[in-house]
């Protein structure tokens, strides 16, 4: 190799770039390095320097803004002052890791079981379960937390009467209402649809012969599940665990919301993300906050590496080979009806009750008091105190809200198009170059944006938009689009990769031989085969983008830009009923969009799973 002349190198390059997968790899490598490594480096650099005068004061010893320092690391990881390192970092890290793991177990367990029933059994009522099951994911994560509190809180723990208590008189202990377990449950339930989508996608395409072969060999059902099914869904499982773990451990709203235990109860749980937020938001300790962000990222990268190691070439398997087998459903027999009923009740409970509580909060002047029922937060055209032109108390009458909704829809649609397409392309590159380090790197880089805290991510692009030469970005729609597309690419790239990995290379090769150019192979062969999975890859960024707030809040010019910022404006003005109404409206809009997509393409976020 070394002795080759430059001409040969040129030829080698030309030949390298004649393959679309290589072009994609290189393009995305550059793009992602720019888009992802930039914020990453900012964080890294920030953790080693004095960020502003307040930090200089905190550090003391004549430190000045911009100086290089190890202080953030040593302080947060080792300071024994008031047991600082242990209390501010290590304990929350351990507790949050425990919470995130528990959330993974809940999400994978609940989502996985539902996915199995939907794809592999003859359970009745699949359509309903499958449609409704994804609701919790469409809702903001804290809405499940809010519902959890409203449901379980009770007077025995000094928190007012909750639904459970008013129905049954049962008072659950505080640790069931606030703290680690409820946080994990809320997050787990919120992300269960995610597990359902990823695992279900694989299960649906899995050759039933694989399981049947084991049945013939007299393996017990449990053994089949454990020895055959589980290893086959392992990549999806690990993808899920990865996403749920990283989301949960860095989730701020849920722990903040369900973190109301009294200190004396011994049930107090302060999550690492709450610590990170408090560190970053205070001028004195930004650098320490960056340290936490980096540690969380290292954690997730660890899981990623594990993921790559487990699903490496050693176990690379494909399920769609073009040799089609018959899919047979497991007969549930007598258990069919009871399981269907239980399943429907549980799924509906967690999907519809939170929606109901939103609706309720939006029509009651005083929470919980039905005598104060009013529709004015929906339909009143009165302006509220200090409203801008177009702002009305009733959200449905507010032209500002509708314009913002329109912009949010447009933004989310474009973000989902870009992120989804990028996801498919990355999936294609990774799948066609299974053993290539560059492709793996691209896949991992595409996942990183997920791990960077939204606020820091936004802040980096904010700083960029203030930099000379980039000021045209400031406040522009393009900036929101850019940031959104990158931030939500991980969902799409994971689904894209999973779907592409399932296709055997021969499926594409057969088309290559048939003179099909690359774009035709993508649009006529690969995309249609895995259509439902890919559409999930488009819908997930759409949903996330529709309800995203903290990522965009720094980048929008005014609160009128996006529907979520309008929402927070209502809530800041004290019109929490109206903000609940907007929340409900966002969910409804997402559901409608999903429905339309479903009608147009025959695929939907849950359909990726649900059979025919």
């Amino acid at each position, binding site marked *: 190799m070394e002795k080759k002349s430059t001409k040969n190198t040129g030829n080698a390059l030309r030949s390298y770039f004649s393959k679309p997968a290589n072009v994609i790899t290189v393009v995305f490598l550059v793009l992602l390095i720019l888009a992802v490594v930039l914020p990453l480096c900012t964080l890294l650099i920030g953790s080693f320097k004095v960020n502003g005068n307040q930090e200089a004061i905190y550090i003391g010893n004549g430190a000045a803004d911009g100086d290089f320092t190890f202080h953030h690391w040593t302080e947060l990881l080792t300071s024994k002052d008031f047991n600082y390192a242990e209390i501010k970092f290590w304990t929350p890290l351990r507790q949050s890791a425990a919470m995130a793991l528990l959330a993974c177990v809940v999400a994978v367990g609940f989502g996985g079981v539902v996915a199995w029933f939907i794809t592999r059994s003859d359970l009745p009522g699949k359509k309903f379960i499958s449609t409704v099951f994804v609701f919790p994911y469409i809702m903001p994560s804290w809405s499940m937390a809010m519902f959890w509190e409203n449901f379980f809180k009770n007077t025995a723990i000094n928190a007012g009467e909750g639904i459970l208590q008013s129905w049954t008189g049962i008072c659950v202990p505080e640790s069931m209402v606030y703290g680690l377990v409820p946080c994990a449950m809320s997050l787990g339930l919120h992300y269960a649809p995610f597990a359902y989508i990823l695992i279900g996608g694989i299960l649906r395409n899995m050759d039933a012969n694989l399981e049947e072969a084991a049945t013939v060999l007299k393996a017990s059902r449990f053994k089949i599940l454990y020895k055959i099914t589980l290893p086959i869904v392992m990549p999806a499982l690990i993808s899920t665990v990865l996403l749920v773990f990283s989301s949960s451990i860095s989730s701020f709203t849920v722990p903040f919301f369900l973190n109301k235990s009294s200190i004396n109860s011994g049930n107090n749980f302060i999550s690492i993300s709450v610590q990170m937020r408090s560190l970053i938001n205070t001028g004195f300790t930004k650098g320490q906050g960056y340290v936490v962000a980096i540690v969380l990222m290292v954690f997730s990268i660890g899981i990623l590496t594990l993921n790559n190691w487990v699903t490496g070439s050693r176990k690379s398997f494909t399920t769609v080979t073009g040799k089609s087998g018959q899919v047979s459903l497991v007969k549930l027999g007598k258990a069919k009806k009871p399981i269907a009923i239980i399943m429907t009740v549980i799924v509906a409970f967690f999907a519809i009750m939170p929606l109901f509580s939103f609706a309720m909060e939006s029509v009651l002047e005083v929470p919980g008091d039905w005598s104060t029922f009013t529709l004015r937060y929906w339909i009143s055209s009165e302006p509220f105190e200090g409203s801008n032109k177009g702002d009305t108390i009733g959200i449905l009458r507010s032209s500002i809200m509708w314009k913002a909704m329109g912009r949010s829809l447009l933004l989310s649609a474009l973000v989902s198009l870009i992120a989804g397409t990028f996801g498919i392309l990355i999936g294609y590159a990774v799948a066609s170059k299974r053993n290539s380090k560059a492709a793996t790197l691209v896949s991992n880089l595409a996942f990183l944006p997920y791990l960077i805290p939204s606020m820091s991510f936004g802040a980096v692009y904010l700083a960029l938009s203030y930099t000379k030469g980039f000021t045209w970005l400031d406040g522009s729609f393009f900036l929101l689009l850019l940031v959104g597309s990158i931030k939500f690419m991980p969902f799409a790239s994971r689904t894209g990769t999973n779907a592409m990995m399932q296709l055997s290379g021969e499926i594409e090769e057969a*088309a290559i031989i048939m003179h099909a150019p690359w774009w035709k192979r993508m649009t006529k062969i690969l995309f249609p085969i895995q259509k439902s999975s890919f559409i999930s890859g488009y819908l997930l960024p759409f949903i996330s983008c529709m309800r995203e707030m903290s990522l965009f809040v720094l980048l929008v010019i005014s609160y009128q830009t996006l529907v979520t910022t309008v929402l927070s404006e209502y809530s800041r003005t004290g019109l929490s009923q109206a903000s609940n109404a907007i929340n409900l409206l966002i969910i409804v809009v997402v559901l409608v969009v999903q429905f339309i997509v479903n009608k147009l393409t025959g695929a939907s976020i849950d359909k990726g799973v649900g059979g025919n």
Partner: protein
Amino acid sequence: MPKITLEHVTKRFDKFVAVEDLNMVIEDREFITLLGPSGCGKTTTLRMIAGLETPTEGRITIGDEVVFDSEKGINISPAKRDIGFLFQNYALWPHMTVYQNIAFGLENLKWSKEDIRKRVDEMLAMLKIEQFEKRYPSELSGGQQQRVAIARTLAPKPKVLFMDEPLSNLDAKLRLEMRTELKRLHADTDSTFVYVTHDQLEAMTLAIRICLMKTGVLQQYDPPLTVYSDPANLFVADFVGNPTMNFIPATAEKTGEKSYSIKALGAEMSFSSSEPVGELSSGGENNAVLGIRPEFIKLGGGKLGAGVYATLPAGMETTVKLSMGDDIITSVEFGSVDYPLNHQVKFDIIGDDIILFDKESEIKLAKGSVAL
């Protein structure tokens, strides 16, 4: 026209060498099988010629066109090589009907609608799958899927057709049937066929020439009967033929330009060939292996004697296993014969196709006849 030439083709995956310095010429309209045990590089070779895999080094020419040259950086895409490829798993597109699967390649060649219709109908008829036109692959049996795959591959009339163990997913009866069909197809289509298999019988029956490979290295590239009767080395001799050739440890000494004296099976014999014979790499005990096809062990008379170890009648022929000291010798008799166990029989080594291999290098030294 499409003569395929491979020159010094090498393929490495990281450190693992899949194909090493392969040179071969596939003549126009030949039917070649790439034969070898799994992992020998035969599929990789096929995929390299087809353009689905990029060789690490070397040069591949199809017809007059250089399709790959590592030196010059030429790498023509598979689509432009005018080839067909039949995959082991068929790789039918599950979202397309049988018709759409077959028509897809023709659409890409910008054929007119009528021509496509005509050609697809032709293919459907040729492969007797007319009634499945509107079905999806998942609604077909394995054999039917196979036929669709063949139809799809042949529809654009490729000059060269590559097949990667296309029959391995079929049952024995269907496989036999499809073999016949393939041979007919070869005659009917004027195309060059390159066929990968690990089944030596399939290779023998189908091919005009067999390319036998082992761990990435070409062992022998000859017509089936040559491979059978004149194997280049122990590996080839062992791989081809069923029941396998008898390998008898022997001590040989070169006695002339075209002869050896041999000690084997407890007897002294002389080996003579019509060609000049090779040099033994060492002297001493057991420096050679005598290779005798079972049909050259003639039972019922002769100077050698052994006990019957087992008799395996198969109707048309009978395989008799003989025990002689530590060695088990296989003999094939035409028709049905039966011997009681441990019955003592006399036998002789007949024919001109007895091979002597060098023990150390495993290379064939000579082909000839033995006389006791």
